[in-house]
């Protein structure tokens, strides 16, 4: 039963978490196959490519006021962060003030419609497979082309492209299929006996949804929200042609790379990464907290 309970929610566990034998050398340690070294080398390269440039960027963003775009550091300061916020090099503050609400709206719409789709798709209606592939196939459409298409469509209809209309639509074409896919994974592990039990105990369909289904699925729903938010906040290809007169953060960064030649651009990278980490951290933290509460609450009391 414990396994049923925990398998119905998203479980996030590090692969080596529970084995106490982690540091015990294998009996055949001296004769590792060559594939081990191959994979190890690949992994080291991966880590270097992922974190090396990011670390350089974070360090360089604290360049002194006289510093340039590359090493060496000429002193340490937060000068370029100030430059950034004062808008010397572009409308970064404005971009953040657009990107954040846009990401929140995308997140909300993605969560509501993905969860609704997940609930609806559990009863197999005619053509549901076709609808499913229709939704998922939009993931394969090249984002940049899709963005141009949406821009064109707005043009044809005589509407102004705007970050909260055309860009919102463009981003949803990206986040909704993702959300639906995650929902299916989450709902696939949801035991329908919970709903039957709720009905048996007198719950109406609305009560079942509110008191049983949504709370049990909450960790999965947070994961969908997280995806919705970060996919929107990072989105570039689809947004480029649809954002209208004012830029979102990724597009502002891109336009800065075209004409800014100061460490401000690194400062911007550091700030946006910080925001992303904050959001991912709080989402994972809340999932962890919910699961911990489910398993350990009684023991703590």
């Amino acid at each position, binding site marked *: *039963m*414990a396994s049923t309970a925990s398998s119905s*929610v998203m479980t996030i566990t590090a692969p080596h978490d529970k084995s106490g034998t982690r540091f015990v050398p294998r009996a055949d340690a001296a004769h590792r196959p060559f594939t081990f070294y191959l994979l190890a080398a690949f992994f080291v390269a991966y880590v270097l490519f992922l974190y090396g440039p990011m670390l350089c960027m974070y360090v360089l963003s604290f360049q002194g006021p006289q510093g340039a775009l590359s090493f060496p550091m000429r002193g340490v300061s937060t000068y370029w962060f100030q430059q950034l916020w004062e808008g010397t090099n572009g409308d970064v503050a404005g971009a953040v003030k657009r990107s954040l609400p846009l990401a929140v709206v995308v997140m909300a719409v993605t969560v509501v419609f993905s969860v609704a789709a997940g609930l609806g798709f559990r009863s197999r209606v005619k053509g549901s497979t076709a609808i499913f592939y229709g939704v998922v196939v939009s993931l394969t459409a090249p984002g940049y082309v899709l963005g141009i298409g949406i821009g064109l469509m707005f043009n044809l209809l005589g509407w102004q492209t705007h970050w909260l209309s055309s860009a919102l639509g463009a981003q949803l074409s990206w986040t909704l299929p993702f959300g639906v896919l995650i929902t299916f994974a989450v709902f696939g592990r949801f035991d329908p006996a919970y709903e039957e039990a*709720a009905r*048996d*105990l007198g719950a109406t369909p609305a009560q079942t949804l509110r008191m049983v289904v949504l709370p049990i699925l909450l960790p999965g729903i947070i994961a969908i929200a997280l995806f919705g938010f970060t996919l929107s906040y990072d989105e570039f290809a689809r947004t480029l042609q649809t954002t209208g007169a004012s830029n979102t953060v990724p597009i502002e960064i891109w336009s800065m790379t075209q004409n800014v030649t100061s460490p401000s651009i690194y400062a911007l990278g550091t700030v946006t990464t910080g925001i992303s980490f904050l959001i991912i951290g709080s989402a994972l933290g809340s999932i962890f907290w919910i699961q911990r509460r489910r398993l*350990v609450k009684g*023991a703590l009391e």
Partner: protein
Amino acid sequence: MQTATPDRAFSTPAASIDARGGLALAGVTKRYADGPAAVDRIDLQIEAGTYCCLLGPSGCGKTTMLRMIAGHETPSAGAILIDGKNVVGLSPSERGTAMMFQNYALFPHLSVRDNVAFAMRTRGIDKKARLREADKVIEQVQLTALADRMPGQLSGGQQQRVALARAIIMRPKVLLLDEPLSALDEFLRLQMRGELRSMQRMLGITFVHVTHTQLEAIAVADQVVVMERGRIAQSATPHEIYARPQTAYVAHFIGGQNVLRGTVAGTVGHTAMLTGPQTGSFVVNTRAPAAEGQILAFGVRRDRVAVTPLKRELVQASNEARGTVRELEYQGIYMKVTVALHEENPPPFVAFVEERAFFEQPVAVGQDVSCSWASEEAHGLEA
């Protein structure tokens, strides 16, 4: 419920109006798209306050039947009456039924107390009142110390008690249990089935318990309903089912019987004389007079068979089958003797020989033996 309920005859709905939870099924059928009927024209009566077990192999329709009584499945045809009222189309709470699910389906996000109080929460009873009531029921199942735990922290037996408490808080008339013991280990299974039985006595309501374990059904039930491919094979008291199975299917399924066959040579009333595949003959009691020349199956209880070393000089007696011992299994109380009968395609034949009787006149593996029983132990079986 001490008397056997007639299984084929559907008489009047609910025997007594005062008793709660009298259950009657009339012509209940469940047909899924383009398959054979999962439940096929079932007539069944379960009197109020009865502990009834639906018994059968997987796919026999027992769970479908339970789910139709519970209101989680709609019959394709037929009526389900609880205390004389047709409940088809009503919700579980309108029926006055409650169900205990196979894996308990305890809500993982709610504490034991909140799980138990759930039915009252759906009815809008205020928090204080429902938690007070929940604590009372939790005490009944002796889980007070664990009331604040989450289901994930409980053992299987504790989870089962929570499921029971959650199901009985609204005082249902009928409690439906879907394989309630299958998730438990052997030791707990024995303990929990005793607890279920005493809980049923205490509440005085009807329990309908689905299981595929024969001994479990016989141990707890007042009424055992053996099912076979969507039909009722036999519905009777555990003693009747075990000692006098009606059909070869029931005899095989319940176990404890050797099923043999013979050709009817003559009949006197409800007694038939059979010639067996060996030279001997058998005297068999039948429920209805048998026809001469008919091949009749009959059952002989394994614990009523005597096994003695074969004396070849003797002519084969009536109610005797000869064979060779294949296997001996010591069971403490008795010796399980498996015998290969001396005939073509011998049916499985096992004797449970009481320990003392066995060691007074032991037989060995490979030894030829004579297996015999008294005439009154052989009962004719319907096909």
